[in-house]
């Protein structure tokens, strides 16, 4: 076989392995879906605060040619305006220090309810950095454990989910990954070339900042480890100056102040229970459904995982994730109930499950979840548009008397480590929902062969 025909054959294999066909997608997308998607794109496009891509030469030339003087004025005055911003920031921090009795670290707030012991344990092991810049607060805690966690900060002036909304992520990881993370960031290349880190000192620690140019210039700052964890802050706030202003407003605080800054619905156990109860209120719950389990297993079982390590009492989650956990648990229970009833010939129970799942388009928890993703109205998006629609798809399947369990989510491994997960276009909704323990469901695994691993 010649090299040329061999190469042609390789390309033919590649064509045959195309995971998503545009023709099939086009066939599957309805006119209503298309209109919805167009409205969404236009809404984002209409937002005046969205930056334009820096690589869009035509746009840049146009912007420069139409407003040359304004750009110049901005550039001359930016330093001064940020200087005042910085002073204001210092003043706010100083006021905090004075009000707290002379030390930011000693800020206490005895008014907070008792926190769960697990949450206090997380706080005690954490550097407990809070953004003190005016207008910024924690919107979500995506995860919250001793050696890893992620807080999403929002800016009141730029709402999180609105077009042009701003967010800052503050994550913490085990200290042993510090070197890996630095190397990983340093390897990143952009169109402008390799990203070069800038080191400085922040809060007495070595701070390494990476700048990624692009449509949304992003900055990431990694602080040297403190105790058993290190902290990374990253965000796309519109400019380097804005990012630095927020970054330099980070202050270490005490345990109570730190836990008190968490959003109540995700941190305070009582509030979290109330949120779960509210979500369950208008959902038909399967007989024997144990709601107490949810209080301890707030995190959803993510597709591709075995779910065990994510389900700890201390794991916190935002409202969307909580919604996934609650609605997913209820849906999986109904699907299980339907499966066993169908096998046992219990038509009444099977029909009960079909009816309950058939009401899913009206589940308030699902409607709330899709609104958070930017969809409008009181109708759930069609199948394939967001996680909630998978529940609808599973409901349709049992209504037609057949629940698919294959193909399922696959985990891809490279160099012996999980490198991502693959959701086939025709993945079974039950698999996407994370109903992994459904009898007969399959998890497929793709592994890079050992002989290749050895060379890496």
């Amino acid at each position: 076989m010649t090299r040329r025909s061999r190469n042609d054959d390789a390309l033919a294999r590649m064509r045959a392995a195309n995971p998503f066909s545009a023709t099939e997608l086009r066939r599957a997308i309805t006119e209503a879906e298309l209109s919805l998607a167009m409205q969404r794109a236009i809404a984002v496009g209409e937002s005046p605060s969205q930056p334009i891509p820096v690589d869009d030469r035509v746009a840049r030339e146009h912007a420069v040619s139409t407003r040359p003087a304004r750009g110049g004025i901005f550039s001359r005055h930016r330093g001064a305006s940020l200087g005042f911003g910085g002073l204001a920031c210092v003043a706010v921090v100083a006021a905090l220090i004075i009000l707290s009795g002379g030390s930011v670290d000693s800020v206490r707030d005895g008014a907070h309810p008792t926190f769960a012991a697990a949450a206090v344990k997380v706080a005690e092991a954490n550097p407990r950095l809070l953004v003190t810049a005016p207008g910024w607060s924690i919107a979500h805690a995506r995860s919250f454990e001793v050696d890893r966690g992620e807080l999403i900060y929002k800016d009141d002036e730029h709402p999180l989910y609105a077009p042009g909304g701003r967010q800052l992520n503050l994550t913490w990881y085990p200290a042993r990954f510090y070197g890996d993370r630095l190397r990983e960031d340093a390897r990143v290349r952009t169109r402008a070339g390799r990203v070069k880190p800038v080191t400085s000192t922040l809060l007495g620690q070595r701070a390494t900042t990476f700048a990624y140019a692009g449509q949304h210039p992003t900055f990431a700052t990694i602080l040297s480890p403190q105790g058993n964890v290190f902290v990374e802050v990253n965000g796309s706030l519109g400019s380097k100056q804005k990012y630095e202003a927020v970054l330099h407003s980070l202050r270490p605080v005490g345990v109570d102040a730190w836990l008190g800054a968490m959003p109540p619905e995700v941190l305070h156990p009582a509030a979290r229970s109330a949120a779960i109860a509210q979500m369950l209120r208008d959902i038909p719950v399967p007989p024997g459904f144990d709601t107490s389990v949810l209080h301890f297993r707030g995190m959803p079982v993510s597709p591709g995982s075995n779910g065990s390590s994510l389900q700890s009492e201390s794991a916190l989650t935002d409202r969307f994730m909580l919604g996934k956990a609650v609605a997913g648990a209820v849906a999986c229970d109904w699907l299980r109930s339907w499966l066993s009833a169908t096998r046992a010939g219990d038509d009444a129970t099977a029909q009960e499950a079909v009816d309950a799942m058939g009401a899913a388009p009206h589940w308030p928890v699902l409607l709330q979840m899709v609104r958070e993703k930017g969809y409008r109205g009181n109708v759930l998006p069609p199948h394939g548009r967001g996680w909630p629609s998978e529940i609808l798809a599973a409901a349709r399947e049992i209504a037609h008397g057949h629940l698919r369990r294959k193909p399922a989510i696959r985990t891809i491994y490279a160099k012996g480590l999980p490198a991502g997960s693959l959701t086939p276009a025709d993945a079974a909704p039950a698999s996407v929902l994370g109903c992994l323990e459904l009898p007969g469901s399959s998890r497929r695994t793709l592994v890079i062969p050992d002989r290749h691993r050895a060379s890496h």
Partner: protein
Amino acid sequence: VLPVDDPPNAVPDVYRHRFERCFRDHYAQLLAFSMRRVSGREIAEDVVADSFAVAWRRRDRIPDPALPWLYAIAGRVIANQYRATRRRHNLDMRLAHETGAGAPGSDPAESLDRRDSFSAAFALLSEPEREVLRLVAWDGLETRDAARVFGCSPGAFRVRLHRARRKLAKQLEAAGHLPQEDRTAVSNPAEEIR
């Protein structure tokens, strides 16, 4: 970052029809393009929304054909907007592996089919090599358009494509899915790619 100064807003609907036609013609293609590059349909839809948002702002200068232009926009959206997410995801996956959450759940040999073997070979290429192949084999672009999306000259793209194909063929050969090469025959990029 430059502020958006959107001239089409001055005459709202003159270019709307052009945008709508472009959207309807290419939405599925752009969605497929994104789904091939990001994990999860939800994220792919976000990419498409962001890309068409840019197209909406530039609707007075949508080129014909529009598809390579849209692919280039989507490529930049993916590269810039989702880089941080990917980095975090990589570390999260490593952490999940350490704690056993994502440990392999089955014998790899039992579930690998031919397509999976292809994926394994494909995964061993560098990201630029994979992207070059995707543009031609999956997105169906001609060399000139693909070069534009990739951000290099057509000549440079041909060379990159030639090398990527050769490397993929080698990996497939190593995996036993292509016959051994006859080394007496030679080829060069100019011969292979027309």
